[in-house]
């Protein structure tokens, strides 16, 4: 059995968090607890004030704060290898930890592409030295993301690939995708799909609608995504293959995914914080931070995504964290690369825009922000005795301005930049170790 998540060696946490409000929807836990972590493992959950301080650990005051299972993100771009000026394994995982994430899955559209064992092996080794939170990797479906030849999927699986994706572009050829799905029977692993019919989205830079008509920008119609979701659901069902649809953005895709699930296809879907909270209306500013693919769509699309996330048609949240350097984004909208960073703002953006507005319950949000690893056959973080400590502690009352204190990411192309959000992550434990700790979080009685 090979490891599938990689992280630098870390000291196991010895910690007592007193009186923190523990919310773990899967454990039906939603009340104040003393939370004791010994040797990086959740040792005990006791009534507030009931647990004695560990002899060789630290005690933190959790009152007024919430502890959730650590968030997971099945879709990030860490830009390594090859584009380390945008992000590195170190800075990307630091951003993840600052956002409360305890596990990530990185996409293979790097330079070179993760399309052969040597690239993947070296990447896993680097993550084993540099990553602050555990990272897993997808390899590409086709060589060089070219859409024409399958990668050596079996060998890549043996070297640690969690699955396969050509994310950043679609597998345009139905025949090519079908072969990949057939081959999945040999190698296993989920096939994750960026859905976009290039014949319909060609040259588009934003959602096609009233705003693109006003601005004179070429539109990306929502059908460029949904027709591919429908097509690939049908192929997945025919081949009885497992397919995960990445960053769904529109109501038509939600309808197609719901129909596929109804028909018994083994399909799942993810939605991104920006698509769940923003619409193409913000693109009127022509701020290139709002340029991403798929694009921000209409309010009807946004509402459909939130409802699908609530109902479970969409299984999980993924950030599609896509860092780009400042000089790449400081150009006219059409010339700017697609993508927004998202790891540091995902929870606060969704909490502020969906939970505080009453659109989504907090427990459902936490469930969906911790569901992504299970789709790749990895463990879901739990706050329960005997479980490795994968926990994020959040001050829901804290209001902060995005970017005001800089970013942990190497890049600053965040679509929530300068927004005031509620809910600040103050502590992240990832696989038993402290991965992030806010400066404001002081111990109340460090013993020893």
């Amino acid at each position: 059995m090979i490891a599938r998540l990689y992280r630098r060696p870390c000291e196991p946490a010895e910690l007592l968090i007193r009186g923190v409000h523990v919310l773990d929807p899967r454990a039906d836990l939603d009340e104040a607890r003393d939370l004791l972590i010994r040797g990086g493992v959740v040792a005990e959950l006791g009534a507030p004030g009931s647990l004695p301080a560990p002899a060789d650990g630290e005690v933190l005051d959790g009152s007024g704060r919430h502890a959730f299972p650590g968030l997971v993100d099945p879709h990030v771009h860490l830009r390594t290898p090859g584009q380390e000026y945008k992000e590195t394994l170190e800075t990307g995982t630091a951003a993840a930890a600052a956002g409360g994430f305890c596990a990530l899955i990185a996409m293979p559209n790097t330079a070179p592409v993760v399309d052969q064992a040597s690239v993947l092996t070296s990447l896993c080794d680097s993550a084993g030295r540099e990553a602050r939170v555990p990272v897993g990797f997808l390899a590409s479906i086709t060589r060089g993301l070219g859409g024409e030849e399958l990668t050596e999927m079996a060998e890549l699986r043996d070297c640690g690939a969690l699955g396969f994706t050509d994310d950043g572009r679609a597998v345009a050829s139905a025949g090519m995708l079908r072969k990949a799905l057939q081959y999945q029977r040999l190698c296993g692993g989920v096939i994750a799909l960026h859905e976009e019919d290039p014949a319909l989205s060609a040259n588009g830079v934003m959602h096609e609608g009233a705003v693109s008509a006003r601005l004179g920008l070429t539109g990306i119609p929502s059908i460029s995504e949904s027709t591919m979701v429908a097509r690939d659901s049908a192929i997945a069902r025919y081949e009885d293959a497992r397919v995960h649809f990445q960053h769904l953005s529109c109501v038509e895709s939600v309808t197609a995914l719901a129909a596929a699930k109804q028909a018994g296809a083994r399909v799942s879907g993810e939605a991104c914080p920006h698509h769940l909270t923003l619409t193409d209306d913000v693109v009127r500013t022509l701020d290139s931070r709002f340029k991403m693919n798929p694009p921000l769509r209409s309010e009807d699309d946004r509402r459909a995504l939130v409802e699908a996330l609530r109902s479970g048609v969409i299984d999980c949240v993924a950030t599609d964290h896509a860092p780009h350097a400042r000089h790449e984004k400081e150009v006219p909208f059409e010339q700017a690369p697609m993508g927004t960073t998202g790891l540091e703002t995902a929870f606060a953006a969704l909490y502020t825009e969906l939970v505080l507005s009453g659109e989504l319950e907090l427990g459902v949000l936490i469930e969906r922000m911790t569901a992504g690893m299970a789709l790749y056959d990895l463990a879901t973080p739990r706050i329960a005795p005997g479980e490795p400590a994968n926990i994020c502690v959040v001050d829901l009352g804290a209001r902060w301005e995005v970017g005001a204190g800089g970013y942990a990411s190497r890049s600053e192309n965040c679509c929530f930049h300068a927004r005031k959000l509620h809910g600040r992550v103050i502590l992240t434990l990832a696989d038993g170790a402290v991965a992030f700790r806010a400066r404001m979080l002081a111990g109340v009685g460090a013993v020893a």
Partner: protein
Amino acid sequence: MSARHLISIDDVDRAGIERILDRAESFAEVSGREIKKVPALRGRTIVNLFYEASTRTSSSFELAAKRLSADVVSVRSVGSSVDKGESLKDTIQTLSAYDPAAIVIRSPHVGAARLVAGWCDAAVINAGDGKHEHPTQALLDVYTLRRALGSLDGVSIWIVGDVLHSRVARSNILAFKRMGAEVTVTGPPTLIPRGIEALGCAVQPTIERLGEADVVYVLRMQHERMRESFIPSLREYAACYQISTTRLAPRQLLMHPGPVNRGIELSADAIDSPQALIGEQVKAGVAVRMAVLYELLAGTPALAAVA
């Protein structure tokens, strides 16, 4: 949006447009004098930065600045450092060293003028940014129509042709609506952007009801922006949408922003017909651009934020 710049027709309300046009009337009088110059902007520097081919817009901006006695520097992308890969931001920072009072920019990219406004202290005038806007064209078209008709209130204006690729269409729909006109767009359905009615215009698939128009504003077929097949052929386009004297009633006024594709969107007889205002539009260019420069640099700000 700041009142210091003219980037979109949304930067200027109806009263502001009327002030600019009134001033343009008096500058038109200057252009009729033997010495076509006033000292309004003496000692001020104006940079014309053109990243796209242009004859009438660049020459009329240059002439407008010179007639106001400003010092003018014209930079074109070909043969400049832009050709060597310099970014727009770096170019603007370089030009800012000359402390220009205004930068007039044309770019193939939507939003370029707005970015420039954020990067320098100069007043920025958008001389066309991709398919987005061309506000001085809209102002000179309103000026031309106001001279011909007195007022645009209640006037029915049909914009015919390639709306998808046209910045002129976007600025003109907004400006004509703001001045009280009713606007209808028509053209090949593949060249009418989805959602355009949100700008407040009606959409017609054919020119069948063209007779309802008081003014027919014909757009240029922009082959240079077309990377795919939007229409089966120019021949079929002409058959369905070309404006000729047989398709125009004598009372209808005809406009075109130029340059014309003779025999495609307009027939030769239409171009040369007495109801065509095409020559008037070109003539209006200098006076209206003088008025815009004057408003931004010398006059009281009439460009009020309405957006």
